[in-house]
């Protein structure tokens, strides 16, 4: 379990190459962006990632925190329609950008075709990686990398599933791509 990134470590000894200069500039900032169609305006610690902002401030906990270093893909969201790892983005860098999370996929209470396909194909077991898998699949389908199972496996390889539901995930992505074409 990872704490939010703004928890500092207890050892304050400067490391090599880290000048012990302190800045007079503030380590907080204001940011305005759109999340799932809603305008959001917040004062934040500059260390806050998009992932921690979504979970701790916006209370959108569908986006999961796995490795917190860009390796597992469970925090995948869309920024301006493109899939990215929310743990690798500072919220302050997203001024004016448009974020879509798993909570923003359904329209008028109707699930997105990719969500439907994951249910139809039983494409998960424990479900922890599922929001990231689904957001990544939406990106993958938009990019057009769903020609065959091998291409889907390659272009979905940034999302790990410890339950190893991969065959069902590939089937779901394939079916959703067909439904959306």
């Amino acid at each position: 379990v990872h704490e939010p990134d703004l928890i500092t470590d207890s050892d304050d000894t400067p490391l090599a190459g880290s000048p012990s200069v302190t800045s007079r500039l503030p380590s907080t900032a204001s940011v305005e962006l759109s999340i799932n169609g809603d305008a959001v305006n917040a004062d934040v610690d500059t260390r806050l990632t998009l992932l921690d902002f979504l979970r701790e401030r916006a209370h959108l906990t569908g986006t999961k925190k796995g490795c917190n270093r860009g390796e597992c893909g469970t925090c995948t969201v869309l920024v301006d329609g493109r899939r990215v790892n929310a743990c690798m983005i500072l919220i302050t860098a997203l001024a004016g950008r448009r974020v879509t999370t798993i909570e923003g996929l359904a329209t008028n209470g109707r699930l997105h075709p990719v969500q439907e396909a994951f249910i139809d194909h039983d494409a998960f077991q424990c479900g922890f990686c599922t929001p990231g898998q689904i957001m990544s699949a939406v990106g993958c389908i938009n990019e057009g990398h769903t020609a065959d199972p091998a291409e889907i496996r390659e272009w979905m390889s940034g999302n790990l599933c410890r339950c190893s539901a991969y065959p069902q995930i590939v089937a779901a992505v394939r079916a959703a791509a067909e439904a959306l074409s």
Partner: protein
Amino acid sequence: MKPFAYTRAASAAEAVDTASRPGVAILAGGTELLNWMRIGVSEPHEVVDIGHLPLGAEIRLDGDVVHVGPLTKLNDVAAHELVGDRFPVLRQAIHKSASAQLRNLATIGGNPLQSTRCPYFRSETVTACNKRRPGSGCAARHGIADNHAIFGWTDDCVAVQPSDPATALVALDSTVVTADQNGGRRIAMRDLHALPGEDPTVHHVLRPGEVIVEIEISGAARASAYVKVRERESYEYALVSAAVALDLDGDLITRARIAVGSVAMKPWRLERAERSLAGMRIGSPEMGESVRAAFAEARPLPDSEYKLPLAQNAVLRAIEEAARP
């Protein structure tokens, strides 16, 4: 992560001014900087964001030179028709470099500046590492070094530079154009990284505040290919990789350019093989001997000996793939 101020550069010149001050880090794609700040590799008091600058958005052909904006996202470089048409080796290297999500964040200028994956360098506890704490030594030299160097290492550092795009860009003889407080300079991509014999404490030759403003690739390398060997099929760092660009006259090699990745602190050009391969025919028996001979100066560590045959075969396979019509 320690507290820092966040600022946005209004121009490349402003980014240079700000980043020339001590304790300021440049934020482009962020896929390295955020992890560096998490584990304490970098502890800036100010982060200057250049991600939004118009340095990146464009890839254009001028004469016979393709100019690549350094802030172009990896996926956008790979998808560009100029790159797909002229430099298949770069397109392939990018697609094998990271997950699709990371490739939507990471930039072509930032990727070659990534740090080594040596576990002692990336450790969250204090270890001997001259790149983390100059003068502290190299824990990997007599420690766990199974993905470490076979070329160009010293007792002060046995790590490797892992960038796939950089390996392709070195094979393509590309040039990095920089801006700094003195105006800037042109650096051959093959000279961008520093071997430990030059300085074991750094990864590359860029000075504080020096910013990459363009990457230039001349000509075309349509007969080119990238082979990456790793412990799983996708989304993993290389054990070894090979970037090959050939000039062919039928099946006759008139020029060969070969860079091997993850075998040294820089992509390693196989100049000896490049010379001897010129004039050989694809598939001729002496090709294998020529490539094997180019590894004569390799000095594998006990744990990295396996890389020698792996790298030789990766180069031979990349030559075959590059020559495939």
